[in-house]
């Protein structure tokens, strides 16, 4: 796995958070936002993003409808549903927990275990 690739589960969380923060957004907007937040460490394109969007939509976390983009193009806008918001909260919490645990592990220095 290249380091610019994103795991699907992680990407789903990023999508949810993006929609939570920015409100309804189309695919390109989501991709750019994720790249922007990551400081261009991640590249996301339609091929990786679309399956995640489809999956989230099936799970009912997001919903979509066609609308007009800022460039006045017909675009599909994705928005967070109530269920999605709940999912985001649960996943954010578990992610924070995981991150905290991992952090503590790395914080342990050699002499601490002696």
């Amino acid at each position, binding site marked *: 796995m290249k380091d610019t690739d994103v795991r699907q589960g992680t990407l789903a969380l990023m999508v949810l958070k993006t929609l939570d923060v920015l409100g309804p957004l189309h695919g390109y907007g989501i991709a750019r936002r994720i790249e922007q937040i990551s400081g261009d460490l991640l590249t996301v394109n339609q091929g990786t993003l679309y399956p995640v969007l489809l999956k989230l939509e099936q799970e009912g976390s997001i919903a979509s409808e066609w609308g007009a983009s800022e*460039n006045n193009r017909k675009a*599909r806008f994705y928005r967070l549903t109530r269920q999605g918001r709940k999912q985001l909260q649960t996943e954010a919490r578990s992610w924070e927990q995981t991150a905290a645990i991992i952090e503590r592990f790395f914080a342990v220095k050699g002499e601490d275990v002696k």
Partner: protein
Amino acid sequence: MSLWRELARGLRGLINRPAADRDIADEVEQYVDEAAASFEARGLSPEEARRAALRELGSVTAVREQVRAYGWENIVETTLADVGYAARRLRRYPIHALVAALTLALGIGASTAIFSAVNPVLFQPLPYPDPQRLMLIWDGQGGSRLDVTFGTYRELIARNRSFNAMAVMRPMQPTLAGVAEPERLDGEYVSADYFRVLGVRPALGRDFEAADDPPYDPNGPFVAIVSDTLWRRRFNADPTLVGRQILLNDIPVTVIGIMPTGFENVLSPQSEIWSTLRYDPALPFNGREWGHHLRLVARVRPEIDLDRASHELQEIAKAQLPDFERPQWASLQDGFIAHSLQDELTRSVRPALVAIVGAVILLLTIACVNVTNLLLAQGASRRGELSVRTALGASRARIIRQLLAETLLLASIGGALGIVLAHTTVDALVALSPPGLPRSNAIVVDRTVLAFTAGLTTVIGLLVGLLPALNGFRASGPGGAPQQSTRIASGHQLTRRCLVVVQVALALVLLVAAGLLLRSVQRLFAMPPGFDPTERLTMQVQVAGQRFRDAETSHRFFDSVLEAVRQVPGVTAAAFTSQLPLSGDEEAYGVHFESTPPAAAEEDPSAYRYAVSPGYFAAMGIPLRTGRALDSHDGAGAPLVAVINESFARRRLPGLNPIGQRLHIGPNSGPWFTVVGVVGDVTQTSLAVTRSDAVYLTAPQWRFTDNARWLVVRSQADAAALAPAIRRAIAAIDRNQPIIRVATMEERVRASAADRRFALLLFEAFATTALILAAIGTYSLLSGSVTERTREMGVRSALGASRLDIVALVFRQGLTLTGLGIGIGLGGAAVASRALVTLLFGVTRLDSATYAGVATLLLLVSILACAMPAWRAARVRPSVALRFE
């Protein structure tokens, strides 16, 4: 919920594909537009912006494909696309596809037909409730299976604790009179519990009750149960038949029940009518109650296992009680032989069937190997295509999936053709099957068989496709440039060579088996039957009805038949016998010679009893060794005389002159017969059984009257053609007496080896197919190899190799493989032939002549298979070769 939504979305996508596609296309397009707009905002020109956006995205089509690969509906779609592509490819190489599909059809068809034949015998349970609890019980006298006596049956009923119910039966062949022609039926006399033991009840009317089976009384009343087929055929399915009387052998019999449709009577499949046995429970020692002629079937209690039940039987046999007196010939000293009904039914045919199943598996394997080989050969030529696909981004799994779709499609076509083939051959198979094959009426291509074939086809499709698919993928990997295929002899050649070796080896195993069987059958027919089978017509003539209750009338009828038959033009001799060699009859009696000390009486042998008319030996061509034949003076009032066969005399009367010796036939309380002559040995049951002891006497001197007798007619030429004239002659005397089982003696000799001939026929068919497939395999390999090495051949001939050198090159390649295959096959055959042992006769399973002959045949065929490619190779001109690419 989510599953439902997923399904609905997938279906929507499938049904409204264009709309779904447009949706995706729109979204991808919009994505590109947005990206382009953002590049434009950074100062690029519109064209440059768009190009940059596309560069960033990669191929729009690729992205769309990637997006489309999501969801189950897309898997369905790509699969359909794979199948469509596979179909187009098969159509593009029709000959190749045809050969492959036909090869598979042969393998699958043969397997399906054989499976449908062996399924009811070897695998399906019998069509009764709890069939595994049914047992067949024999008197184990002398270690062989002997029918039980009624007396033994009564003792077992009274003493056993392991069985729910027991029943005995014996065949009957009554003549049914009616509006139409009199018809001779097959049926059984049964004890009242017969159908209860089987667990089947009549569909109409009632079952037999104990009251229906009293001791025999000529005035009846008689009752019968008829089969569904008889009810429909003779009585137009009239339900009022129950309670009505029909005329059986001129005796009124009341029909009390009709068996259900589809009732299968495995113990006597031809039976259409059943009546009660009516034996005397007082069990007089000189009556039929102590004759060994009943089959005993029993149902074991649910809580008892079969071994325990069998054990109890042995205990009963050992411990004789004063309440149950036994005559000396039914002393049960050797215990019982008891096994499950299913095992007993299939016992005689199991070895042949297992061997045949083995053969068909070999054939199927050869067919699969052959098709694999064909696909590999084609794989070489499509390496270019696969390389291109890989270069365009097809994944390994995707390529393998597509290649498997092709072989699965091929296998499906082969399977469909195979089912058609099986359907058409299965009837022929049943017609050819030996008469001993149980449940042959249950042999059909049914749902089980179709499920088997479907499963087999899938497995074959995957197996056959696996090697070529893996090979194809390897070849399509990096470096497998499209143009290399004509220059290098690559790894797949090695695989293909191994496959050809396997094929040759398997074909050799089948050929050896067929060869051994062929020699067995030849040896068998070379056995002297003891009589002269040429130009002898035989048929069974029966008398039935009130008129013939009197023995005199019966004898007179047969005498006048003989007179009339002798008048028929073309007839040179005619005689009657109570049982005919190789007819399936087996009626034997214990024979006690006066010269044998009483102490040795327990070892008295049993011999076949023939009640014959004077002139029987001449009519059959049985040679007289010493003494005289039976003649017309040996009538009812004359001294009792007998003729025995020579090996019997040699063994039982060593050092004595057999003429003048006296013997008992059956119970020792009977009268003495004096031996007046000795004839040659005659085979009674089968050509393979060399020793059958015989006692011949005249019909009037025997204590019972045989109402069914075999007529033997000898003619100068074409005995079979005499049948109508003889029928007419007998009908002129009494047109109501049925004539049955008409066949020439030569036909009987052939039929007596039916099981071996059946196995031989199938093995010959399989082995021939295997030989052809092996030849095709070798040919296609060499031919492919010559094509690939055209350049090499050209270079060789340019460098001065003669045509002979090149021919030798090809032959060396081909014959090395064949030689290897033959070597491995000989080893395999030596092991596999163990399964054939019971079918062999007069040859050992390692018969060197057979092995050598078969190896030579295979070698010759493979030389033929090499010749064509070698000839082509020899004609390669250097100039052509150098321009080949």
